[in-house]
């Protein structure tokens, strides 16, 4: 195969992997602090996309002459803030309330919450059952080299995604807030005794994870120029699998898992003899095999540290 085409496959995989990693980071953060699996996370991504789109329409109406750059910035800020608040509200009203109950209850409750979010968009967003065209707001410039088309918009999305993950990483490892999050993750009781405001830290963690998810939703919309109410379903399942094979509770694991899944899908679609329709079957089958091989994930969680 040509180098150009090979590079194109790598770029496709990287873009997909970045989206999965952004979703997986949320799963891993939530598991890190509270040992819970929040199955509504995929649908939170979708709501993030729709919030951005609504903001776009509002800006179009109020400030039709605004250039795409500031428009996008507005959309990202509003969507990430709204979804961060939504995440904190979910933590407050569902997850913290179910602390005393078996973890299976949290799992079920968040699964149902996901359905509620999905169906709400389907039923209450204007014409929400149909796929929505998402405006192309990034520059369309591209360069072509022997089968490889490198697009500026993809590059921008990838860089912002990477920047976001790096900042989450720095936030957790280099700041006082991060220290408090890590303290809660390690030992809730001791952290409380040391004066850490447990509830606040949990809410903040959920806000951070959800804001990252909102960006994933926007990225999805900008990359495919389309969003739909059911996109969170598969994204959630993939993000969760990515977090699990990477090692739940470990940010590097989530990133690694996200990229592994994207590359498995790409290989499934192009390099294997069977129809490309089976790429998801192939990818999930390999994930099962990986889980059997390393039950705690590829980068296993150290017992002393979770986030």
């Amino acid at each position, binding site marked *: 195969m040509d180098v150009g085409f090979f590079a194109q*496959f790598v770029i*496709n995989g990287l873009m997909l992997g970045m989206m999965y990693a952004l979703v997986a980071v949320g799963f891993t953060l939530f598991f890190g602090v509270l040992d819970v699996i929040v199955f509504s996370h995929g649908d939170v991504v979708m709501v993030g996309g729709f919030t951005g789109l609504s903001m776009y329409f509002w800006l179009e109406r109020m400030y039709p002459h605004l250039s795409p750059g500031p428009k996008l910035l507005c959309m990202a800020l509003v969507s990430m803030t709204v979804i961060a608040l939504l995440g904190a509200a979910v933590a407050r009203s569902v997850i913290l309330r179910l602390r005393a109950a078996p973890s299976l209850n949290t799992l079920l409750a968040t699964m149902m919450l996901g359905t509620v979010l999905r169906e709400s968009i389907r039923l209450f967003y204007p014409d929400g059952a149909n796929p929505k065209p998402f405006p192309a707001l990034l520059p369309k410039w591209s360069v072509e080299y022997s089968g490889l088309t490198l697009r500026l918009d993809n590059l921008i999305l990838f860089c912002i995604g990477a920047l976001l993950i790096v900042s989450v990483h720095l936030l957790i490892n280099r700041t006082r807030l991060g220290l408090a999050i890590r303290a809660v993750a390690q030992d809730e009781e001791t952290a409380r005794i040391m004066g850490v405001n447990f509830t606040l830290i949990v809410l903040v963690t959920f806000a951070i994870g959800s804001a990252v998810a909102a960006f994933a939703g926007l990225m999805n919309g900008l990359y*495919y120029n389309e969003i739909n109410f*059911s996109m969170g379903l598969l994204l959630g399942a993939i993000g969760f699998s990515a977090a699990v094979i990477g090692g739940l509770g470990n940010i590097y694991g989530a990133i690694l898992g996200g990229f592994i899944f994207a590359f498995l*899908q790409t290989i499934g*679609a192009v390099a294997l003899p069977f129809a490309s*329709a089976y790429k998801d079957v192939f990818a999930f089958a390999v994930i099962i095999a990986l889980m059997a091989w390393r039950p705690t994930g590829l980068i296993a969680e150290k017992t002393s540290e979770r986030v």
Partner: protein
Amino acid sequence: MIRHTTGGKNWVRRWAAACLLVALAAFPAMAKQKVAVGYIGPLTGGVSANGLGGRNSAELAVKLRNEDPSAKYEYDFVALDDECKPNIGVQVATKLAADRKIAGAVAHYCSAVALSAVEIYHRFNLPVIVWGAVHPDITYGHDFKEITRVNGTMINQNETAAKFMRSRGYKTFAIIHDTTDYGKSHKEYFNKFITENGGKVLGVFGVTADQQDFNAELTKIKSLAPDVIYFGGLTPLGVRIRSQMEKLGIPAQFEGTSGIKSDAFIEGLGKELAEGSLSFIEGMPLEKLPRGAFFSAAYDNHGYTQPPEAYGPFAFAAMSLLLDNIEKLGPTRAKLIPAIRATKDADSIVGPISFDDHGQNTVAAISKYVVQDGKWVLWEDSEYASGKRSLKKPQ
């Protein structure tokens, strides 16, 4: 005097009795018997534009009949949503078929749904006229007398498509199809006809009906460098594939089937990107149909905001055919089934309807369409045919 008065009273009484009799006799004629007819199509989801257009058109047929003073019955229109999903389709088909108040129905845009629902109609003996689904097996895959279809099958469509593409000088093709029965059959028939006509298929890619990312498949297609990318599937996927083709800089011509011939395809892509896309569909365009103008005017007069889409006229024709038969024979399912099946040269807005021994309407022509300036234009009338504009060159 007395006698006279009594006689007068008698006369008044008789007159009153006569009036009462006439009134009694006239009353049921004024309040006509109610008959319910059903409609099933995708009212939500990716292809809902087609489902809503079909619903409006079928409902229009019912409304026109209810406005007609000479109609024997008053019709209730029951529309159900199959979401283009077989599992949902089976539920609503059962609901409709099991309701004995429903005399007959026009149903289905999505082949995958129609294929799983036909047996239900057979089991409950509900006469159903298919208005939009194109898979051959919907009529030819069984011997159920309940099922008829006014629109054509995908066989003719793909034959015309293959011949046309070869005549334009395209030699090599890559096929993308969704992995439902609908998409798979499109692949099968196009593959067959294009090979017979001397074309070459370089690669076949099956994709799931809700797939979002086609970059992997398209990058592989880019390395194969075909003249044409043929897509056998419905509008939402068509939009995604065409737009991702552009992002990867693939210069091939994009060719779809009747599944993408909807205004939603152009709306989803935008005018520039949709330009030059091809599709093939049975029947003539609305404005060329003998009573197309009548249909369009009635459609607009009844205040429908969504367009009737490609198969709206077929839904209208199917519903009209059903209502004609109910008017003639009454709302008894057992009488309607053989009568509808025996339809020969029935007048309709899509041309005369005749069913063959499998209940399939023998539709004549397949029309070729190309997107020009944000509209699906009949190939013969387009600037592409006149040579003013040109499709993508064979590579």
